[in-house]
């Protein structure tokens, strides 16, 4: 498949990137207003602050970030296989999804964190009574289970929106990197689509798929780090636990990102191709 981008594709990319940046801008303005309100209450933290705290507490748990992004990534890889191998390139559903993915992957991870706070927590008022019964706490045990559940779903949705498109995109790129002649050579030997996929395409593309998964997970950790960072910056006075988490998440994100680049670098983008 041709990897050269045409003029039309570049144009499309510019439009999509612009949309992504507009969304980012809106998110920033929104967050600034929210935080201003929270500060204006002076001492009495707004419900958003409590929710943010709940979110941070949840994010404190490394395993939650890890397992959530893993589920999102695995689902994303499955989606990519379906899109790339079963739907024809002209299928309108595939084109729609690919365009959506182009928008979603163009949005920086911080915007997702902010969106998570703004959109998914806009239902905070309904939980206000429950929230006010409990003091602001970083301890996950102290957060009412209702809020915890809301936060959990909100976070899961954010992860799906943020991690999955990237996983889909990277997996699709990996699958496309398997040269067409290799598939053809397997098909003329009477291999079924499933056999071509499992015996040729996946073994060849495996490193790239793995690299894409790491990149996606790195993104999840970057977002988690940013959320924890925002919380630390605004709502805690004493340095300590939270900033430690911030650094931990950021390092995990960095390590995963470097690992993913190394995978591609060591095996070479062309090693999968027939030489």
């Amino acid at each position, binding site marked *: 498949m041709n990897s050269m981008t045409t003029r039309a594709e570049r144009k499309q990319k510019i439009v999509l990137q612009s949309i992504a940046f507009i969304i980012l801008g809106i998110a920033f303005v929104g967050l600034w207003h929210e935080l201003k309100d929270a500060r204006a209450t002076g001492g009495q933290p707004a419900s958003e602050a409590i929710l943010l705290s709940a979110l941070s507490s949840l994010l404190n748990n490394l395993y939650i970030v890890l397992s959530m992004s893993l589920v999102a990534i695995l689902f994303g890889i499955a989606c990519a296989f379906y899109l790339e191998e079963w739907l024809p390139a002209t299928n309108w559903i595939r084109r729609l999804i690919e365009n959506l993915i182009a928008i979603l992957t163009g949005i920086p991870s911080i915007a997702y964190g902010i969106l998570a706070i703004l959109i998914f927590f806009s239902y905070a008022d309904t939980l206000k009574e429950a929230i006010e019964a409990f003091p602001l706490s970083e301890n996950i045990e102290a957060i009412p289970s209702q809020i915890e559940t809301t936060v959990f779903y909100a976070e899961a949705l954010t992860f799906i929106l943020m991690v999955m498109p990237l996983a889909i995109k990277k997996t699709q790129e990996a699958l496309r990197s398997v040269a067409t002649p*290799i598939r053809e050579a*397997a*098909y*003329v*030997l009477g*291999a079924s689509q499933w056999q071509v996929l499992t*015996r040729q395409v996946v073994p*060849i593309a495996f490193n790239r798929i793995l690299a894409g998964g790491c990149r996606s997970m790195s993104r999840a950790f970057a977002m988690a780090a940013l959320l924890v960072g925002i919380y630390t910056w605004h709502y805690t006075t004493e340095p300590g636990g939270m900033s430690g988490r911030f650094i931990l998440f950021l390092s995990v994100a960095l390590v995963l990102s470097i690992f993913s680049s190394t995978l591609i670098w060591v095996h070479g983008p062309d090693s999968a191709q027939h030489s």
Partner: protein
Amino acid sequence: MGNKIEISGLEVHYGGKPALNRVSFDVHENEILGIIGPAQSGKTTLLKVINRTLEFVPEATLNGTVKLDGVDISTVSDVYGLRRRIGMVLPLPVGLPLSIYDNVAFAPRAAGIRSKSQLDELVERCLQQAALWDEVEDRLDTLGTKLSGGQQQRLTIARALSHEPEVLCLDEFSIAIDPVTTMRIEEVLKTLRKEMTILLVTNLVQQAKRLATRTAFFLNGDLIEIDSTDVIFSDTPTQQATYDYVNGTFG
């Protein structure tokens, strides 16, 4: 001799652009049919129709019938089984990124053969038939892609033979191989002819003259002439265009 393949009224279009125009001819059993013609004359398309890989080209439309042993191939439900009955050697050698052994054992395994001794025997026989066994005998577990171009092409021939096809299609197999190796493979083809029907698409008209029992000349998607090789390469083929092409005074 009976007819192995019967093609009637075959028309192929790529997105409205014609590639084959109402082509009809038969391929006899155990013959080597040379198919010659300049680029864009529909030779490769013809082979793709026969093993039904044209289905991977979304914009291609097909009319007419192709019968293999009297059965219309478009009605065959087991397309993978059909492809195993037809060996295909593509112009550029593509070693699957597997070991030499696994390259040859790929098709038998896909067909469900698991027995190690059976596979060993098959791999050795196919590599010998493709004149490659002596060179790779002691390194069957190295990557197929590490072989030289000519060796890889012989590997693809061994692969095409590994599923014991009834029809062997060779699409310009010799463009990546040196003349000496080409000669060796040509000798192999002559012996294989006893077991299978061979379709030899070639740009080298002399190769068709050397090997083919009959030769078909295609031009711009039309079958200009099909006759015994002696007639095609004589001074008096039916069509002037055939004479011009085989004598190099074309155009």
